[in-house]
């Protein structure tokens, strides 16, 4: 099929239509808990889109995107908190209005962080971003800044309510808000990776020398990628704060950053729909793992450590192919190679996993 509309093939259009129908159907047909969890999926989809742009498209590995989410989350929480307590302004509109502000502040922070990161690549960049993820929660926790940042006790927010004229539950409203923003951010990312800027990101990722030889400024695009990625993360952090109606430093700990990278890889780096897959796993895999760990046959109880199953499941997942799903011939050289060459080592690791319950945690 070669018919295309807006430069998108018929297959993708079908997938998009089916996806939208499913997305609208979920909150209308499931219970509150499930709806809320799926609302959270949208948050992580946005965060993963940010990480995918940075790591998948511009080739800069980040173990620190949770820190950018922290900035977004705290932008929303502290804006609402201080407006209420210092100025007596208390309106749900503040929460909505704080989302672009979160994007802006986190984006600016990411852009600035991109400068020292310019000198680093590969494992060294990973370590630098790791340090970022490690240091943000304790900074929020500093006693002397408690009057601004509210320290370890965190900040409570009002839960989001739907407007009166809509007969929706809070969860359904939250779901639609989160997914509407996720949809918007998806379209932006979709267009970005097809723009000159997106091509420059990928050129830098594939061959810095060739990119530079073509006149691409490495420093500009690397810092820009950090800025855009952080802006996405900031929105995700802001929506996370709004969804849970609470933030504290632990929400944005190291675990979050690591889990984001794992989910981004699972979804497929450099694949437009990767964040969607990654977001689903991010939210639902821990839940399923917990369900599995509760199973027992007669008196035989499986190890009651959900993390073990979390780990095993991650290991068993097929490795998604990066490099762009729109490549017609993506299965040629690369796909086969990456699918063929991992199994024996994987089996060994699986054994280690099952022999020591609780001792191995993937996330």
């Amino acid at each position, binding site marked *: 099929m070669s018919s295309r509309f807006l430069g998108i093939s018929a297959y993708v259009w079908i997938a998009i239509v089916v996806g939208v129908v499913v997305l609208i159907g979920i909150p209308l047909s499931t219970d509150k808990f499930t709806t809320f969890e799926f609302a959270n999926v949208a948050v992580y989809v946005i965060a993963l889109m940010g990480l995918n742009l940075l790591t998948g498209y511009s080739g800069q590995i980040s173990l620190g995107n949770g820190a950018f989410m922290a900035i977004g989350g705290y932008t929303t929480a502290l804006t609402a908190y201080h407006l209420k307590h210092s100025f007596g302004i208390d309106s749900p509109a503040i929460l909505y209005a704080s989302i672009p502000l979160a994007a802006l502040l986190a984006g600016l922070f990411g852009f600035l962080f991109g400068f020292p990161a310019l000198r680093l690549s590969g494992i060294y960049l990973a370590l630098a971003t790791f340090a970022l993820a490690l240091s943000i929660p304790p900074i929020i926790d500093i006693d002397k800044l408690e009057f601004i940042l509210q320290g370890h006790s965190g900040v409570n927010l009002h839960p989001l309510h739907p407007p009166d004229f809509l007969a929706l539950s809070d969860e359904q409203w939250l779901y639609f808000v989160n997914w509407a923003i996720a949809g918007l951010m998806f379209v932006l990312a979709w267009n970005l990776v097809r723009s*000159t800027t997106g*091509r*420059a990101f*990928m*050129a830098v*990722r*594939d*061959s810095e*020398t*060739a*990119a*530079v*030889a*073509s*006149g*691409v*400024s490495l420093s500009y695009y690397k810092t820009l990628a950090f800025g855009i990625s952080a802006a996405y993360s900031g929105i995700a952090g802001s929506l996370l704060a709004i969804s849970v109606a609470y933030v504290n430093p632990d929400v944005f700990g190291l675990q979050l950053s690591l889990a984001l990278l794992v989910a981004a890889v699972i979804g497929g780096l*450099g694949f437009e729909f990767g964040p969607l897959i990654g977001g689903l796993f991010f939210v639902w895999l821990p839940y399923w793992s917990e369900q599995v760990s509760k199973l027992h046959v007669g008196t035989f109880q499986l190890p009651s450590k959900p993390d073990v199953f979390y780990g095993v499941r991650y290991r068993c997942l097929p490795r998604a192919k990066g*490099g*762009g799903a729109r*490549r*017609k*011939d*993506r299965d*040629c*050289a*690369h796909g086969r190679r990456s699918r063929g060459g991992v199994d024996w080592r994987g089996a060994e690791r699986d054994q280690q996993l099952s022999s020591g319950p609780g001792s191995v945690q993937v996330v």
Partner: protein
Amino acid sequence: MALLELNEVQASYGSIRALHGVSLKVEEGSIVALLGANGAGKTTTLRAISGMVRASGEIRFAGHDIAGRQPEDVARLGIAHVPSGRGTMTQLTVWENLQMGAYIRRDRDRIKADYERTMRYFPWIRSRKDQVAATLSGGEQQMLAIARALMLNPKLLLLDEPSLGLAPIVIRDIFEIVKAINRDDGTTILVVEQNANLALRAAERAYVLEVGRVTLSGSSAELAGNESIRKSYLGD
């Protein structure tokens, strides 16, 4: 007048000096070869010209002193660099690679004309525009890298070991294309080669680098007849 002139150019990687004062001239419309053993500074010389390594000394290109300029500024002046080891963006399609070549240009109409011109040398590319570059053969990738560089419509083309790792028959094709580009478009070419035989046959002049210095230079015919060159680089 020389299109490119290097005067006592020095360059270092950290504390290690790679170029100890390289001087050379490339006349407009000519092919010049840069010969030498591994580590002699051939690649560094090209990188110094295109601004990828910080260089001191004088590098004059078409009347500008370009020493120490940013790579994107140098590219804008019309110097296209084909790095060694295939300068392709492997996960991008062939077409996207070509678009990257014209990345800094804003003259859309001319880009189209340059695309048509480039396709004269690489007609096979037309039918394979949507293929991911990683799935091309080594020779095709090298040709794509050259095609990408031509999309800049360069005055000067820097080729870093275009023969690296390729089959002899493919190497011959590539050098025929390089000669055609020079002959038909008048593009000036500075080519780094380990394969001195090949390079001397294509080039009018050549410079021999040894540990960061030019030790010999002359017309290709002179150098091909030079005793020490024959011993060191031509395998006699």
